């Protein structure tokens, strides 16, 4: 039976991101191709060709220009978007800080791919982890449905807080794999998002402004402090808007997902698509009577320390699976989990899947079993 509120479509993660962008209908979109992000802009350019969107398209010569164009467009008072991966995100680095410093609510889908060198085009999280402290809100999506919903949710959070958001999906694993995605009707989504009315914009000639001015010592820290305060407000706003969005999606939009966690003895913490593999393993092990669970952080920046402490506090042992490294320091997710939990929980770290290497259920089962028999001794150091 046809439902007017949503349609089920068969989409890859990248196409799901493009669908979300079509419903947002940004005023300006800048394009620069990079594997595995290219299908997003490829699909979006089809929408443009068919006249389904009103976006002005800028074809630029690099990702540095792509982000610069978006910063200029957003400052002029319209919604502006681009998408990128890996080296592209690395090249944007300089402008990422400017976008968040100027408090422009840009939403950018990021398809996670590893950073060179060695050259590799497959998935790991080192690109988005490299810019985790640049003042962007970071949301990690497990599957195609989450990609679609998180982009729409991110748009509203960004505009209310006035901070930019990256919405991550795993390169190839999510971006190129086909799943059924519920696409809500354009009318419902446009009602949810509303019109974009910035308080200040460059093209508002009645209230002229200058942006990007030199800010000297006494003001610089005050303006940075405003940014810190805004980041602190994100969690509350995210939950509030998430509840509002849940009425449309009928799914929970929280800082993290708990899977069989409340009565578990040991748990794995991991993000993005691997959470699916862990869930499948948990289902198998639960049938055999093992009390295992999963915590999947979705909102990575700002990181919900207190809430994760509460969610993990009853466990004996936790293993954090990181799909990236932080050379010379704890892996990014492991470091955050260490900072969250109490001293009496054993927390250990595994790095997996660098450069797109697969992780299998058997390996996850082995990790769970090691935790259950107390073979994981490694404590915080």
């Amino acid at each position, binding site marked *: 039976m046809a439902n007017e509120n949503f349609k089920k479509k068969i989409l890859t993660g990248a196409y799901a991101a493009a669908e979300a962008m079509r419903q947002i209908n940004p005023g300006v979109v800048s394009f620069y191709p990079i594997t595995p992000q290219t299908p997003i802009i490829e699909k979006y350019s089809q929408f443009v060709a068919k006249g389904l969107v009103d976006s002005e398209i800028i074809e630029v010569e690099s990702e540095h220009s792509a982000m610069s164009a978006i910063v200029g467009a957003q400052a002029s008072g319209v919604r502006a978007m681009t998408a990128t991966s890996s080296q592209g995100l690395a090249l944007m680095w300089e402008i990422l800080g400017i976008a968040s*410093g*100027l*408090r*422009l609510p840009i939403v950018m889908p990021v398809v996670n791919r590893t950073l060179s060198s060695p050259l590799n085009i497959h998935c790991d999280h080192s690109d988005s982890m490299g810019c985790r402290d640049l003042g962007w809100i970071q949301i990690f999506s497990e599957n195609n449905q989450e990609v679609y919903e998180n982009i729409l949710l991110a748009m509203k959070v960004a505009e209310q807080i*006035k901070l930019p958001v990256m919405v991550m999906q795993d390169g190839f694993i999510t971006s190129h794999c086909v799943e059924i995605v519920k696409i809500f009707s354009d009318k419902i989504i446009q009602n949810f998002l509303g019109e974009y009315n910035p308080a*200040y914009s460059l093209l508002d000639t009645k*209230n*002229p*402004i*200058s*942006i*990007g*001015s030199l*800010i*000297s010592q*006494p*003001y610089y820290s*005050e*303006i940075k402090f*405003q940014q810190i305060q*805004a980041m602190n407000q994100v969690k509350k706003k995210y939950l509030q808007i998430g509840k509002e969005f849940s009425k449309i999606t009928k799914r929970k939009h929280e800082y993290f997902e708990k899977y069989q966690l409340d009565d578990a003895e040991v748990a794995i913490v991991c993000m993005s698509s691997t959470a699916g593999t862990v869930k499948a393993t948990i289902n198998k092990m639960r049938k055999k009577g093992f009390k295992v669970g999963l915590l999947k952080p979705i909102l990575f920046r700002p990181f919900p320390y207190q809430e994760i402490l509460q969610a993990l506090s009853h466990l004996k042992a936790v293993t954090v699976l990181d799909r990236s490294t932080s050379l010379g320091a704890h892996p990014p997710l492991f470091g955050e989990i260490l900072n969250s939990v109490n001293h009496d929980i054993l927390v250990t770290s595994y790095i997996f899947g660098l450069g797109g290497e697969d992780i299998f259920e058997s390996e996850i089962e082995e990790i769970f079993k090691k935790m259950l028999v107390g073979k994981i001794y490694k404590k915080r150091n």
Partner: protein
Amino acid sequence: MAKKIKQNLIGGIINRPGCSKEYKTGTWRTICPIWDEEKCIHCLQCVQFCPENCISVKNGKRKKTNLNYCKGCGICSQVCPIKIIKMK
């Protein structure tokens, strides 16, 4: 130092044109140009060369240096053809 404003706009946005006038760079000065008004021939060389544009002209004659903005760079003293601007 500029006058402290009560509320900074987010992202360092400035919505009042010409507010760089409030940033008085004169506090940077360690030496001060002393101009001998009586001997001045009003060639206006110093006016042309002043990087801060802080020497005003009226009826073809230069006026006193605006010390709110003079950084004390000494260029006026250097270009003066009869050397009547002394840096002290």
